[in-house]
């Protein structure tokens, strides 16, 4: 009895040692290998990286004098990476403890301890979700979460403006946020753009969603012959890269473009669809162009989902004498909306952060009453102007953090309250 407890405790101190002593050699060795690797990492780079995260460099580089210097930004990145690795190791450690407790129980009950292969098989079956999600989670952690953490942290530094490598960046706490709140120009611009951004995201999502659904339903009709042929046209539009379409549309609506050419040919006056006074004209053109680009995708999606519908339901419904409108509202719509609510939310988010449309159609204008932005710019375009065009990374990051908090609260509430999230099994 006692000896088993000691073996278990071994795993608390050296992860994997207990398993090894219980006879689960391979598993134990694997756990120990992870620990060994981590210790090797700590001493070869990890500790320096963690320290570097807090100091952000101490030696300023000077290429003229050949002084290599510290690169604050890289140090920050490596620091974040070392924390992520630490978290991963902690997760491993706890899984190790859970595992050793299970083994201890088995031994207490006098059952045989499973071999490596057997426990691997049962793990893959019982914890299939862990196996399946391992790679996706690692990938997302390194290429999505790490950059996002990086960006959030940038909001608390003075990175940007004159302070770019080789100069050293420093932590400045909340001063970026204080600056945003104290400058009226920024506050006003923020509120104005946010208002338009919400209108844009809502209307673009609705137009694209119902446009796609409408097309899919139209093509699904029994009387339509040659469905593949008709479906090919939206697909053509889908196949041309978006930025090319956008540049093409910008040209079409420009003063030298074909639309104004025909207006003038008919003796009308040229219209500045996208110029400085355009305002709502440009906004509506943006919505339409965006619909042209996005509807094919949502049509494809709706087609896929409609094809998954149970035809028996319809047959039953028509036997019951339900009209087609009733069939649509009572059967099709709930089914489609149910299985696409998450898509609706992603599409809303995508539209909310739709950078391309106005960057290509109407970039490079700074209007009065806006700080480094125009009346068609979305928040993401403004962020781009701030942080890429004008190099204010720190401020840009702070603004995007604020935007992020607002938008994620909105979409999270919408999502959590949606039926797709609450009642996931409705149509099973």
């Amino acid at each position, binding site marked *: 009895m006692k000896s088993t407890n000691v073996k278990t405790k071994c795993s608390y101190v050296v992860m994997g040692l207990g398993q090894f002593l219980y006879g689960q050699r391979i598993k134990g060795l694997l756990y120990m290998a992870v620990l060994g690797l981590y210790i090797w990492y700590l001493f070869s780079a990890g500790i320096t990286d963690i320290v570097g995260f807090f100091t952000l460099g101490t030696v300023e580089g000077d290429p003229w004098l050949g002084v290599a210097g510290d690169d604050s930004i890289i140090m920050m990145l490596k620091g974040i990476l070392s924390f992520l690795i630490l978290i991963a190791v902690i997760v491993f450690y706890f899984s190790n403890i859970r595992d050793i407790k299970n083994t201890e129980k088995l031994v207490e009950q006098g059952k045989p301890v499973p071999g490596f292969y057997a426990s691997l098989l049962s793990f893959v079956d019982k914890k299939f979700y862990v196996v399946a999600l391992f790679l996706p989670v690692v*990938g997302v952690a390194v*290429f*999505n979460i790490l950059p996002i953490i990086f960006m959030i942290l940038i909001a608390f530094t003075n990175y940007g403006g004159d302070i770019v490598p080789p100069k050293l960046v420093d932590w400045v706490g909340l001063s970026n946020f204080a600056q945003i709140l104290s400058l009226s120009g920024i506050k006003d611009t923020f509120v104005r753009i946010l208002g338009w951004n919400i209108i844009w995201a809502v209307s673009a999502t609705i137009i694209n969603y119902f446009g796609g659904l409408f097309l899919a339903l*139209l093509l699904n009709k029994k009387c339509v012959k040659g469905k593949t042929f008709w479906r090919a046209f939206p697909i053509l539009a889908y196949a041309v890269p978006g930025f*090319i379409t956008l540049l093409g549309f910008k040209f079409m609506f420009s003063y030298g473009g074909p639309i104004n050419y025909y207006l003038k040919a008919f003796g009308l006056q040229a219209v500045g669809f996208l110029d400085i006074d355009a305002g709502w004209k440009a906004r509506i053109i943006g919505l339409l162009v965006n619909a*042209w680009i996005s509807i094919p995708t949502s049509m494809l999606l709706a087609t*896929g989902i409609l094809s998954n519908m149970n035809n028996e339901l319809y047959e039953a419904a028509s036997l019951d004498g339900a009209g087609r409108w009733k069939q649509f509202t009572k059967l099709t719509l709930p089914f489609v909306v149910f299985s696409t609510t998450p898509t609706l939310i992603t599409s809303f988010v995508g539209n909310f952060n739709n950078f391309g449309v106005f960057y290509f159609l109407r970039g490079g204008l700074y209007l009065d009453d806006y700080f480094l932005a125009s009346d068609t710019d979305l928040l993401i375009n403004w962020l781009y102007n701030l942080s890429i065009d004008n190099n204010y990374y720190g401020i840009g990051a702070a603004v995007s953090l604020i935007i992020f908090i607002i*938008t994620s609260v909105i979409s999270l509430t919408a999502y959590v309250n949606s039926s*797709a999230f609450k009642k996931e099994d409705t*149509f099973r």
Partner: protein
Amino acid sequence: MRKERLSEAVITHIVLIIVSFVFFFPVLWLVLASFSASGSIYDYEGFFPQSYSLGTYIKLFSDTQMYDYPSWLRNTLFVAVFSCVLSTVLVILTAYTMSRFRFKMRKPLMKTTLVLSMFPSFMGMTAVYLIMINFNLINNLWSLILVYSAGAPMGYLVQKGYFDTISNSIYEAARIDGASNPTIFWKVTMPLSKPILVYTALTSFAWPWSDFILPNMLLKNRDLWTVAVGLTHLGETEFSRFAAGAIFIAVPIVILYFSLSRFLVAGVSDGAVKQ
């Protein structure tokens, strides 16, 4: 009753023709532009070039000193295929797991991914660039494949929505037959997932053809550019070449669509659910 059907069919087809025209016309215009003899769009009479020739396409593939289109095409194809395969695997795995299994971290994970996707991606671009510098993957096409496929699972919601509509009874039946979870995934779920597989593969295949922000940052050498990066660097008066380049990359996607469209439309409900 028959008359009603007929008039409905007529209206449906009229609407279809209008819709098709709306989608087709700008593409047609782009195609015409690519055949324009003069190269610039400003010699046009309205929408149409004054004279046509194949010159642009010939130039696109032969005049490679400044703009090495054939290389760009190879690079993009390489990136698109590998990131398509990897992303599809990762997305389907993620979506299936999130739809089929109930575990403690599930809802937090779902909420986290939703929140993460709200972030403006270019703000994190600097970090991605620095990561790639540390991995020594600048000027390497694999860096793009890595980023594209690693980020793909974030967009799992569409696929999850699809899996949510597959009836639980099928799984239970398989479970009673003694199938393990990996077996169920391969033998039961996969055959039912053709439409969504095709959808996922198509979208992830098409993405590298139009993204230019990331490759522009990660690929420095001109001969390593992808088509999208290359086209954005074309001189301002090279519109024909721009259009020709765009049309040419639309071709593989359209072909793919036609060869795969059966699967997009083929209903699963007609198949397995009824069995």
